[in-house]
């Protein structure tokens, strides 16, 4: 996590690209096609924003991967109106943190980072909807799991591992 801004930007771009393809492979074909108001550009913006938020909170990668995975799976199943789109993103982040991290952000803080466009109640409601929609199934393989497994198997050094992490 000791990255400077320049390389972060680069990583962001790559991270985002990679997850884009990844999520296509993972979730259903009908990924965004079900959505009426949400476009691919909007997803890119949202994911970029989530990556930024994730970096600010200084959490580890699995949390981010889970967040984006949850968001995509949710969008593949449920039509989300445009004004609730960011709420969905921030809720996915909340669930990702709750599941992966030692500490999770307060709902109030998450509401704050959306500049109160999603109220606390919105987020809690969205969380319930998301959990029920996904059938409480949050355990899915994430890119970082594969990376760790393979690099361990190949006996890579820590520096090489970090390189790998960046490219994921």
């Amino acid at each position, binding site marked *: 996590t000791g990255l400077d801004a320049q390389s972060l930007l680069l990583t962001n771009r790559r991270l985002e690209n990679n997850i884009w393809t990844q999520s296509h492979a993972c979730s259903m074909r009908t990924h965004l096609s079900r959505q009426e108001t949400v476009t691919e550009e909007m997803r890119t913006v949202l994911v970029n924003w989530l990556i930024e938020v994730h970096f600010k909170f200084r959490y580890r990668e699995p949390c981010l991967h889970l967040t984006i995975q949850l968001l995509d799976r949710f969008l593949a199943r449920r039509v989300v109106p445009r004004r609730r789109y960011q709420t969905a993103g921030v809720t996915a982040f*909340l669930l990702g943190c*709750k599941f*992966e991290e030692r500490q999770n952000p*307060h*709902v*109030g*803080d998450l509401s704050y980072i959306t500049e109160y466009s999603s109220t606390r*109640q919105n987020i809690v409601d969205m969380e319930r909807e998301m959990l029920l929609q996904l059938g409480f199934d949050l355990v899915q393989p994430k890119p970082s799991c594969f990376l760790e*497994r393979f690099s*361990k198997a190949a006996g890579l050094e820590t520096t090489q591992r970090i390189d790998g992490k960046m490219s994921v």
Partner: protein
Amino acid sequence: MVVKCESRVSGKVMVVKRIKKMPSVSGDASDEDEAGADQGFPVRYLREACLLRACNHPNVMKLEFVTYHEGQIELFSEFVGLNVEDYISSLSDEYFTRNKQKHEWVLQLGRYFMKQVLKGIDYCHSIGILLRDVKPRNFLISSDGTLKLTGFVLARFSLLPEEPLTQQVVTLSYRAPEIILGGTYPVYTAPVDIWSAGCTFAEMITGRTLFEGDSEIGQLLKIFKLLGTPSDCNKSFCFEVPSYIELLPQWQPQSLSERLEGLCDEGVDLLSRMLLYHPCSRITARDALKHPYFQGDHSLMKT
């Protein structure tokens, strides 16, 4: 609150765990805004529900479904029955003394249950779940003698790389030394469950808790008293341990077979491998299942 119920649709008997959603109390005091605010689905139950749903194994309790209404969460799982702790306390003392026939029966049952304990743990570890709360209370015995693993409240999803996790896990009596010694965020992984399983094993055989400490340090003393104080702690645990450990009395390891009267040599050997200090040299659940102790036909005799 836990209640037993019967489904009107399928006639299945199920257990419902009903959780009232409490406003968070843990929020820091400086954060007045957050005190008492609704934090959504509680983290521990979120993990329990998700991880149980991800499991599908005869030795893991099956979670049928989850409902989540305004402020109330209900987890519906299959009805199993008695837990191992109750089973142990239901046996009278003479089962654990030299009274030949009854003790023999306890030993056989112990082996039979232990195999299932390890199968359940092995399954969870193989799909990346760290249980962190293995103890007799969390094993349920169904009417046909199948053991089911439950108590996923403290469990989490974690893979190979060891990472610092929180310290407040595992009931004290079953807590592995690396968690006690590791500081605020000790690094630990799957072997902590094996340690707890070892303690459970001994408890099933002797009817008493193996290490019953009243505090963290007391727990450590109990462990060292039986297994010996390690002479070179940093080497035994493969990480920096707090310096106070050098002030502890130097005990010699005691014989496990004396403590576990009547247990065969293979059983004692398996237990000693499950209770090694160094997490990496501790036996894994999968290797434990291949241990000579479980070889051969050990189906239960009807009593």
